[in-house]
C-alpha cells in the first residue's frame, strides 16, 4: 500500500532576481505512513511551509518528486487536491465578512459538493469544532482560537484523507491549543493522516507519532517521537532533586557529566555522554544522600535546541 506521503530527493529553490537564489528545500526524502501524525519541526525559514505548499500543490518542486497517496503532486494535481486538506495558521485564509457557516458554504461550492451535502457537513463540522452556536456570526468577530477551528472545519469539508496543518496553534492560548490537539487526535482515530508543521515542541510531543526536524531545507533527523532522545546518539540524562546548588556545581565538574541545568526550583538535570556515565553519576548522587534520582532521555525540545540552537534569532 502506498504511504500517505512520500518525497524523494525533493528540492525547492527560490530565485530572487539578481540576488543569490534561496534553497528552501534540499534533497528531502521523507515517508509518512497512513494514519500517522507526523510532526515537521524546524525554526522559522527552515522549509516547513515550502514542503506543505509543495504537498498541497500550491508550489512546484525544483527537483525530486513528491507523492500523496500514490499521486504525483506535480503531474496529478487534480487527484491530489481532492485528497488533501490544507489548514493554515493565523488570521488569513478566511472571509471575515462572512459568517462561519457561509464560509463553509462558499468553500463547499468550490469543492464541488452539492448544496445538501455542503449544508449537512457544514452543520456537522461546526458542531464538532464547537462553533455551532456562533455559526451565523461574522468571522471578523471571532477570536484566534475560533478562527483556527474554522480553518480546520474548512480543511475537513471535502473529507480529505491527508491534512496538512501549517502552524495551526500559533498564537492560541493553552486551553484553545489543547482543544485543537484533542480534535486532531479524534480525527486521526477516523483514519486520517496529518502532517503538522510546527515549532511548538510540546505540541509535537503531545500529538505526533513521528517527527522530522529540518533546517535550512535539509532534513536533520527523523524518527519516533517517543524515542526523540536517541536522536542525540547515546546521550542520556539524570534527573534529580536537591536543595543545594553547590551539589549541582560539584556534579558539573565530573568527567562523566557534559552539563547540568536547573529544571525548576530544586529539580536538576545532568547530561551524560553514555549509559556507563549515567550509572556512575547515579551512584555518585546516591552516595551524597540524594533521595530522588532517575535516568532519563533528552526531551524533544532538548533535541531541537541542541540541533538547531546555534541559530538564535537568525532566519
Amino acid at each position, binding site marked *: 500500500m502506498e504511504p500517505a506521503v512520500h518525497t524523494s530527493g525533493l528540492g525547492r529553490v527560490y530565485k530572487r532576481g539578481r540576488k543569490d537564489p534561496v534553497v528552501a528545500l534540499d534533497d528531502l526524502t521523507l515517508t509518512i505512513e497512513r494514519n500517522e501524525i507526523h510532526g515537521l519541526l524546524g525554526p522559522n525559514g527552515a522549509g516547513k511551509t515550502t514542503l506543505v505548499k509543495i504537498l498541497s*500543490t*500550491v508550489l512546484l518542486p525544483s527537483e525530486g518528486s513528491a507523492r500523496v497517496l500514490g499521486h504525483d503532486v506535480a503531474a496529478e494535481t487534480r487527484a491530489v487536491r481532492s485528497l488533501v486538506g490544507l489548514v*493554515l495558521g493565523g488570521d*488569513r485564509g478566511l472571509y*471575515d465578512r*462572512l459568517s462561519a457557516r457561509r464560509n463553509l458554504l462558499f468553500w463547499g*461550492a*468550490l469543492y464541488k459538493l452539492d*448544496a445538501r451535502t455542503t449544508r449537512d457537513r457544514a452543520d456537522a463540522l461546526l458542531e464538532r469544532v464547537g462553533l455551532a452556536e456562533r455559526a451565523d456570526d461574522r468571522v471578523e468577530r471571532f477570536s484566534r482560537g475560533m478562527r483556527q477551528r474554522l480553518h480546520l472545519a474548512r480543511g475537513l469539508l471535502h473529507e480529505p484523507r491527508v491534512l496538512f496543518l501549517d502552524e495551526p496553534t500559533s498564537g492560541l492560548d493553552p486551553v484553545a491549543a489543547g482543544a485543537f490537539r484533542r480534535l486532531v487526535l479524534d480525527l486521526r482515530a477516523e483514519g486520517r493522516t496529518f502532517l503538522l508543521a510546527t515549532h511548538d515542541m510540546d505540541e509535537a510531543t503531545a500529538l505526533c507519532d513521528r517527527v522530522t526536524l529540518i533546517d535550512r531545507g535539509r532534513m536533520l533527523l527523523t524518527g519516533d517521537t517517543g524515542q526523540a532522545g536517541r536522536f542525540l546518539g547515546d546521550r542520556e540524562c539524570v534527573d534529580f532533586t536537591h536543595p543545594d546548588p553547590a551539589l549541582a556545581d560539584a556534579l558539573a565538574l565530573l568527567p562523566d557529566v557534559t552539563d547540568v541545568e536547573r529544571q525548576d526550583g530544586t529539580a536538576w538535570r545532568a547530561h551524560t555522554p553514555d549509559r556507563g556515565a549515567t550509572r556512575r553519576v547515579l551512584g555518585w548522587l546516591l552516595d551524597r544522600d540524594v533521595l530522588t534520582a532517575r535516568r532519563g532521555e533528552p526531551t524533544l525540545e532538548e533535541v531541537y535546541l541542541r540541533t538547531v540552537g546555534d541559530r538564535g534569532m537568525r532566519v
Partner: protein
Amino acid sequence: MKPLLRIVRESLILGFAEMGAVYTWRTWTFGWLMRLLCQATFYALLGRYVGDEATMRYVLVGNIVVLACMESTIVVISLAGERRMGTLPLLAIAPSGHLPVYLGRGLQWTVTGMTSSLVAWIALPPMLGVPLPWPRAAYAVPVVLLILVSSYGYGCALAGIALRMRGVEWLVLNVAYGIVMTFGGVNVPVEVWPAPLEYAAQALPVVHGLDAVRGILDGASPGRVMRLLGTEAVVGACWYAVAALSMDRLVSVGRRDGSLDYAG
C-alpha cells in the same frame, strides 16, 4: 443547483457581504449613486456649455452608459483582495478550478453598475431637459447590460496586473476606467483622436456598445446596431479570454516561482 451557479451565488453573497463593509444601502444610494449622478450631470452641463443641446445629449448618454463600465471594473479591487486575505492559493487549488471563482469575485459590481446606469437613464434626461425617444430608448437597456458584461471582462483582465503587483489595484482601476472615459467615445467621438489611438480604442469595451446606444436613439438601421452589438460582444469575449489566460498564467507561474503566497 449546477456547480457553476452555486459558485456564482456564493460569490455574489460574499461580494455583497464585503460591500457591506463599505456601504449600507443608504450610504450607497445617497453617497455613491448620487456621486455618479452628479458626475454624469456635470459632464452633460459641460457639454451644453461648450456646445449645444445635441452635444449635451451626446455627453449625457455617454456618461450614463459608462457608469456600467465604471462600477463593473471595480472587480480589480475585489480580486486583489484575495491576495491580501491569503485566500488566493486556496482558491487556486480548489477542485472547481480557479477560473469560475476568480471571474465571479466582483459580480456584485455588475449588479450595482446596472442599477446605477438604469437610475441615471431614467432620472437624468428628464431632469436635464434632454428628450429621449421613448419607448425606443428602452432598447438601450439590454445594450447597457452587454456593455456591463464586456466591461467586467476588461476589469477581470486588468485585475491580473493588480494580482501580480501588490498595492497597485487602485492605480490599475483608475487608469483602466480613465482610459475608457477618455478614449472610449464617452465625451468626444473616438474619431477625434489621432489614427493610432483611434484604432487602439476599438479594442476597448463600451466603444461599440455606446455607438449602438446612440444609434438606437438616433434611429439607425437595425443592421448597423446589430453589427455594433456583435463587435462589442467580440471585444468583451476577447477581454474574457485575456482574463482567463492571465489568471491561468498567474497560477501556473505562481506555482513555479512561489508567488502564490498565503501569507498575504
